[in-house]
């Protein structure tokens, strides 16, 4: 590994503070006079609030304030907008609508007293029937959850369609083979190791609010706080310090953040609020909860012709999904996958239930996760039906390199890719053919060995702002680059790392473009007072959007340097040529100036051409022309114990194509993390509910995450197909493995169970679920066993 140069493996700059315990996460922020907040939450999934008695809590000697929905109502803050244009209760006024909903907020002098005081608040509830099964939400007579919304009669939120229903029906009608399968992508949770929290500090003299919070989108949050609180936006400073993992969980605004702000305004002192693990799992942004019916039409020769899907999407009690506003089902429209189809159609219906709000999180690329799972399970089901090898079936149907740019049947234009080469590489790395031979021998011995294949096309880097916005904020991102007189640089970015290594990769982009050492480029992020506006980091958008902005701003600086160098050398700028770090006179390489020399001159008394300002600094806003479409081919080898149903992942081979890799070490690390997510979701993770609406995934005792023992040593490979529209040819990669790996694991397990004739079982494939599948009675995994 080197410490200089542009692209390539390079140790991360940010590691130095983390390995010394000197990171600064939200709970590490300490301010003089700081108070502590705690949230009282509803024990009921659905209940009317008859009364809240806070007198005893207020009498606690260390309590400084108790806030309820009624007191927020006086400030017009009892409700706040969600990222989907719905509204969400900050503190409940009329009803509670999910177990764990925020009801009251206590501010005390220490965190233990704040918790104690929660016990002193007496809330009188009238329990109401709860809707926890999305499939019952639209029943006539189902309890209406959102009676706060004028004119609403049921729990229906939206219907959304993509593709051509008529054309799809035609293909299905004359298809030789059709496959139908109901499948659930169960509710899961991103569960970053650091829970959510905030420290609010309202200065009553200047009227300025400084808010440290766990956010992946500090600028968008600042704008929303201005809209919600009425504080002017320039009097709000949002600081996102080191973030202990986000994965989408830290995109929304949570009631606790707003309560901390109000607490600071009321008390005149800084207020810290950090949630505990149960609060994080039970009340913050979940993911998935997609009930899908997938259909596939094909020829007997294995030619896939059309895909059709209907989805029931459980959005919980408030429609708080975080995705571009014109896409209520996110980017699920890419369910056509990596195949050349004649027709496709999907219809998605969103419903309210008495479950926590959220819905687009956990590294899902705005629901590409669900789309890839659907199509990759259907393809395996087709292989089963036709008794064909699933890898061969995919190879036969994959898009060919010459078809790019390829516009799929639902209108998404894939930018580039070499799918057959990527799949072939994965199969070769796996030793696929000999694995199949081994499997045959194992089966003969009664052992259950499975080989699962998946191929995914991702759609990341939202996005072109004529199509993509969140609450009216277009998804373009700004960047500013300053070159100091001595030739070192400061880059200010709008996106927000949660572990992705932005301080290193963004420095590498500047270094590559200007011929500097990455060590000479400081990357500033996570402070709205110090960085330009942009929508933040999620949906694998940092490199596709802000990475592009960074390359372009560096090229602007390079062109400014050219003019200054021309003045220094007293030649025409057109006569200069660039080599990394230096402009020189064409034909006379000795006559040249380095960036550092040019930077100093740009700040000096050098006479510049008319109209040319001094300095080299530049800024830009990047509005991407399209998404980037990374792809990958994954192979999972798993063994199943027929006696217990326990699944062991023996090997996992992942070949990713994310275009040009800025820092391959960081890319591989991101893939590793996503593969672990895939094992977790496929085998362990689910937020389930009992019939009364009790959340059964409220701690790490119940919501199981993969450890070092469930994860194999990952085997990676790569292909590189640059994005034709990205300035450095890069594509996003942060979520690729999370998107692509669950179907590979599930396909492997179902393949292992083939001797039992198992066609499908829903995730998570826990020992109980696998065992029941072997018995021919798969479980409904999102509900407690009745």
């Amino acid at each position, binding site marked *: 590994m080197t410490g200089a140069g542009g692209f390539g493996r390079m140790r991360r700059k940010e590691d130095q503070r983390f390995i010394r315990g000197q990171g600064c996460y939200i*709970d590490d922020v300490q301010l003089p006079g700081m108070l502590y907040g705690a949230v009282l939450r509803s024990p009921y999934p659905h209940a009317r609030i008859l009364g809240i008695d806070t007198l005893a809590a207020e009498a606690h000697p260390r309590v400084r304030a108790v806030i309820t929905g009624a007191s927020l109502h006086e400030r017009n803050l009892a409700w706040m907008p969600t990222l989907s244009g719905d509204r969400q209760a900050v503190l409940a006024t009329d009803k509670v609508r999910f177990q764990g909903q925020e009801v009251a907020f206590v501010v005390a002098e220490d965190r233990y007293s704040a918790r104690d005081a929660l016990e002193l608040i007496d809330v009188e509830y009238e329990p109401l029937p709860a809707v926890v099964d999305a499939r019952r939400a639209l029943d006539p007579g189902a309890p209406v959850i959102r009676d706060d919304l004028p004119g609403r009669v049921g729990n229906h939120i939206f219907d959304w369609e993509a593709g051509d229903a008529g054309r799809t029906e035609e293909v299905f009608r004359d298809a030789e083979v059709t496959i139908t399968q109901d499948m659930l992508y169960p509710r899961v949770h991103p569960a970053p190791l*650091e829970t959510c929290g905030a420290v609010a500090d309202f200065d009553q003299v200047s009227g300025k609010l400084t808010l440290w919070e766990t956010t992946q989108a500090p600028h968008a949050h600042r704008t929303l706080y201005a809209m919600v609180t009425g504080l002017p936006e320039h009097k709000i400073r949002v600081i996102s310090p080191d973030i*202990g993992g986000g994965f989408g969980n830290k995109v929304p605004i949570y009631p606790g953040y707003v309560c901390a702000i109000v607490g600071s305004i009321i008390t005149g002192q800084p207020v810290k609020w950090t949630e505990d*693990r149960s609060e994080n799992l039970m009340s913050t942004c979940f993911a998935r909860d997609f009930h899908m019916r997938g259909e596939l039409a094909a020829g007997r020769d294995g030619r896939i012709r059309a895909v059709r899907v209907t989805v029931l999407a459980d959005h919980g009690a408030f429609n708080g999904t975080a995705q571009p506003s014109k896409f209520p089902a996110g980017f699920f429209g890419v369910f056509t996958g990596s195949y050349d189809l004649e027709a496709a159609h999907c219809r998605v219906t969103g419903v309210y239930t008495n479950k926590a709000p959220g819905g687009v999180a956990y590294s899902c690329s705005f629901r590409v996760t669900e789309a890839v799972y659907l199509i990759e399970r259907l393809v395996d089901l087709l292989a089963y039906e036709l008794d064909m090898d699933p890898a061969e079936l995919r190879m036969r149907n994959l898009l060919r390199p010459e078809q790019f740019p390829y516009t799929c049947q639902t209108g998404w234009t894939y930018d580039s890719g070499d799918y057959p080469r990527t799949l072939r590489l994965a199969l070769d790395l796996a030793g696929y053919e000999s694995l199949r031979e081994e499997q045959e021998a194992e089966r003969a011995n009664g052992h259950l060995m499975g080989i699962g294949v998946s191929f995914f096309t991702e759609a990341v880097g939202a996005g072109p702002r004529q199509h993509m916005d969140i609450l009216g904020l277009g998804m373009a991102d700004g960047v500013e680059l300053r070159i100091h007189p001595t030739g070192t640089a400061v880059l200010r970015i709008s996106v927000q790392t*949660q572990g992705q290594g932005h301080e290193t990769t963004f420095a590498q982009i500047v270094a590559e473009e200007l011929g500097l050492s990455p060590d000479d480029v400081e990357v500033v992020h996570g402070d709205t007072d110090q960085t330009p506006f942009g929508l933040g980091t999620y949906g694998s958008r940092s490199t596709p959007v802000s990475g592009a902005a960074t390359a372009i701003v560096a090229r602007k600086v390079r062109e400014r340097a050219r003019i200054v160098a021309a003045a220094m050398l007293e030649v025409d700028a057109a006569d200069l040529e660039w080599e990394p770090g230096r402009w020189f006179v064409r034909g006379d390489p000795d006559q040249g100036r380095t960036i550092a020399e040019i930077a100093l001159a740009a700040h000096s008394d050098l006479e510049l051409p008319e109209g040319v300002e001094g300095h080299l600094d530049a800024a830009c806003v990047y509005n991407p022309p399209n998404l980037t479409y990374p792809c990958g081919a994954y192979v999972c080898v798993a063994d199943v114990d027929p006696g217990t149903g326990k699944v062991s992942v023996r090997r996992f081979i992942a070949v990713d194509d994310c275009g040009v890799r800025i820092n391959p070490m960081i890319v591989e690390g991101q893939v*590793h993390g996503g593969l*672990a997510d895939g094992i977790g979701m496929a085998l362990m993770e689910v937020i389930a509910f009992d019939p009364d609406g009790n959340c059964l995934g409220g701690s*790490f005792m119940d919501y199981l995450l993969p450890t*070092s023992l469930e994860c194999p*040593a990952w085997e990676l490979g790569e292909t590189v197909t640059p994005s034709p529209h990205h300035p450095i040819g890069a594509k996003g990669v942060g979520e690729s493995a999370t998107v692509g790996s669950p179907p590979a694991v599930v396909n492997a397990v179902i393949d292992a169970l083939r001797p039992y004739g198992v066609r499908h079982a829903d995730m998570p494939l826990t020992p109980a679920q696998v065992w029941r599948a072997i018995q021919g009675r798969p479980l409904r995994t999102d509900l407690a066993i009745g």
Partner: protein
Amino acid sequence: MTIRVAMTVNGTEYARDVEPRLLLIHFIRDELGLTGSHWGCDTSNCGSCVVWLDAKPVKSCTLLAAMADGHAVRTVEGLEQDGRLDPVQQGFVECHGLQCGFCTPGMMMTARWLLDRNPDPDEAEIREAISGQICRCTGYENIVRSIRWAAGHPAEHPA
């Protein structure tokens, strides 16, 4: 009501009057200001809070500060000695053993404990040693490699 709690942390004596129920992790973080050790789950599952109590890794979210009274605690801040990084720290940098960094201090404390007892652990032994701790970013692979790197560079560890 408060009680007097005294302990050695990274070689320095500390004494504080604290609530009897104060957790060790909160004592370390809030009373001593050593925020390198993290709190992550309350239920002893995630291991973000792992520190040493008398040279043995413990989950400090599940110990009372009072239970550490009279004992010696070592935290991530005590890994670097005389300005020299522990090979475990260097290994995590060399092998990209961390991303968000939240689990890292606990992982490194367990890794140092393992290497002190088993200077040349194989992959399975490393995976077993860290199996009580959760990392959400790395998929564990590079943590294993980081600890192997440290095992291969013992000379740099100050005796």
